């Protein structure tokens, strides 16, 4: 591999890593910060992609579709949190796993009833449809660079909200000690409802913005779910920064793994996860127990 190839692959890796962070961002909030094991994360991602497919069909404009889709996702998140998740904060993780697994089945069936089982593509918005020449015969799609920029924006936004705002303080306080926080007069139920809805909205948002490059099909959330957990676990539970670094590491490891050790490509990221956990069981930026 010469230097040019190395740089191109590094770009691929970083770009993939940023995409992974975006995809995992919703899980970072819900699992990382709230400590709720949300197996339905991938299903929310899929619903987002289908929302984009449906709304682009109606409006012919991806950005308009996203603007319309986010309130729908927030509403879905709020309803699910109030009706179901809110009853599980005091229960153990197994109950959460069961409930959110049930949600996967329900959401998959809903998708099938609403949109059928066909494979769909969502066109890349006209103004971002071009490509930037990279090497003599390879170009880089502008839309992928745009997604990278959006990922950076989401990462910065999440960090700002959690580290620098009053809501972020309430979230962090609630995550470390629910009773004490509510004793201080904070409506912790409402805070958690907001966080859960935001997490669902982020999952759906990443599905929507990713739809033009990922295509839209049943079961598309399954892989997203696994990789998102890998990102959050490597990064360390409770750390947005960790998830960000973790996602970049996985993106690079996966990309170079494919090129350098193609026979073991599917194992590389899990090997990386195992190594990180051996070295730091709490994850790269997780607090030691």
């Amino acid at each position, binding site marked *: 591999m010469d230097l040019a*190839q190395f740089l191109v692959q590094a770009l691929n890796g970083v770009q993939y890593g940023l995409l992974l962070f975006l995809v995992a961002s919703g899980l970072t909030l819900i699992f990382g910060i709230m400590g709720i094991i949300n197996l339905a994360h991938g299903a929310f991602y899929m619903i987002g992609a289908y929302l984009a497919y449906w709304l682009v069909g109606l409006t012919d404009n991806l950005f308009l579709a996203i603007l319309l889709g986010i309130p729908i996702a927030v509403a879905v998140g709020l309803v699910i949190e109030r009706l179901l998740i809110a009853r599980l904060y005091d229960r153990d993780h197994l109950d959460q796993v069961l409930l959110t697994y049930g949600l996967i089945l329900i959401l998959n*069936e809903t998708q099938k009833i609403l949109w059928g089982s066909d494979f769909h593509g969502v066109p890349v918005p006209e103004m971002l449809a071009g490509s930037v020449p990279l090497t003599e015969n390879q170009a880089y799609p502008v839309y992928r660079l745009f997604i990278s920029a959006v990922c950076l924006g989401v990462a910065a936004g999440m960090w700002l909200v959690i580290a620098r705002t009053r809501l972020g303080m309430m979230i962090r306080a609630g995550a470390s000690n629910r009773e004490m926080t509510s004793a201080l007069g904070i409506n912790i139920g409402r805070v958690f409802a907001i966080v859960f809805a935001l997490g669902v909205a982020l999952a759906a948002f990443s599905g929507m913005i990713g739809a033009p490059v990922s295509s839209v099909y049943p079961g598309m959330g399954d892989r997203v779910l696994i990789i998102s957990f890998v990102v959050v676990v490597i990064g360390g539970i409770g750390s947005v920064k960790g998830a960000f670094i973790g996602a970049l590491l996985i993106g690079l490891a996966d990309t170079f793994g494919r090129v350098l050790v193609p026979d073991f490509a599917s194992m590389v990221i899990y090997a990386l996860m195992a190594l990180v956990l051996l070295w730091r069981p709490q994850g790269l930026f997780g607090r030691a127990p």
Partner: protein
Amino acid sequence: MTDTTRARPSRRRFLAGAAATGAIASTGFVPTRFAIGGQAPVKVGILLPYSGTYASLGEAITNGMKMRIEQAGGTLGGRPVEYIAIDSEASPPQAPRHTKKLVIKDQVDFLVGPVHSGVALAMAKVVAGRDKPIMIIPNAGANALTRGQCARNIFRASFSNWQTCYPCGQVMADDGHKTVVTMTWKYAAGNEIMAAGTELFKEFGGAVIKDIRVPFPDVEFQAHLSEIAALKPDAVLAFFSGGGAIKFVKDYAAAGLKDSIPLYGPGFLTEGLTEGQGAAAEGIKTTLHYARTLDTPVNRMFLEAYKKAYNKEADVFAVQGFDTGSLLLQAIDATEGDTGADASPAMIEALSAAEVPDSPRGPWRMSEAHNPIMDIYLRQVEGGVNKILGVASRDLEDPATGCKLDT
């Protein structure tokens, strides 16, 4: 989950279902009375995916098969039909259990399925050599099913993986290409299709520079596209299906490779997917045993009838389901409706010599190894449809290496 096809309702499906239910209701309480008169329903077990990524394939196959039987009066050999469908979830580990349920508990007369080759090999292990049921494969292309693991009571109405891309090599050589990179998922179907596609290419003096294998069912292709750009082959031979095929074709074009390095593959790369792929698919040449654009009276009628019945476009999987229905009809007509264990040899004999003149893909006949002998078309995406350029290989028969049938 077990006893219904979990597809969306349509009027025709509802009517068919109601008829079947009526038939069950009238025979269910006192089965023997009607069984003697030959009016007990013919049991058709179906093991197809109705959820997950392959759900649309399962639905199309079921629709096509039911439509064929409806066209023949809605009965098999004059008897009503009872469909017993199980969602295979395209999961090989669950296949033996599902198959045994249909074969042993439900005692189905025919077994139709599956889509996934891994499921097919597991099913074949249960079914092979029995008098009942007769198994008809409406998709799964694993070569072994009609080679080393062929069986007298297992028939394929679809294709072998080898057939779908064997002509690819000649097509690429004819277009003047000398070097190729192959790219597919790292699983049996991918490897078999790529091996078939490069077989002739090598014979014509072409060279395979690299075989890129992506972990199944991963759809992150960017790193590999950069590899291809650096390797600069004359052509790329690729196989992906469904959502993966949409994404691959779009990514390939977005990486700027489409114009400098033309893309070839089996027709699954573009068939039924051109709408999702858009302009990125234009110009891609593929080979397959069918194309929607096939301009024959049979195909036009088929497309029209399918659209009317299910309010969506038929695809190659619906065609395979349709032909599965034709085989069921031929088998049972050979015994005039008798599906008892004694009738099995006659049905097997009829299917072994089956000719399907009214298939939307064009006439085909059954090979000695129980796999279709059929034309493979060369198609090119033009104006958003797979246009047929000609027949890439006439009456193509799978070599059936290692198949020994003890008839």
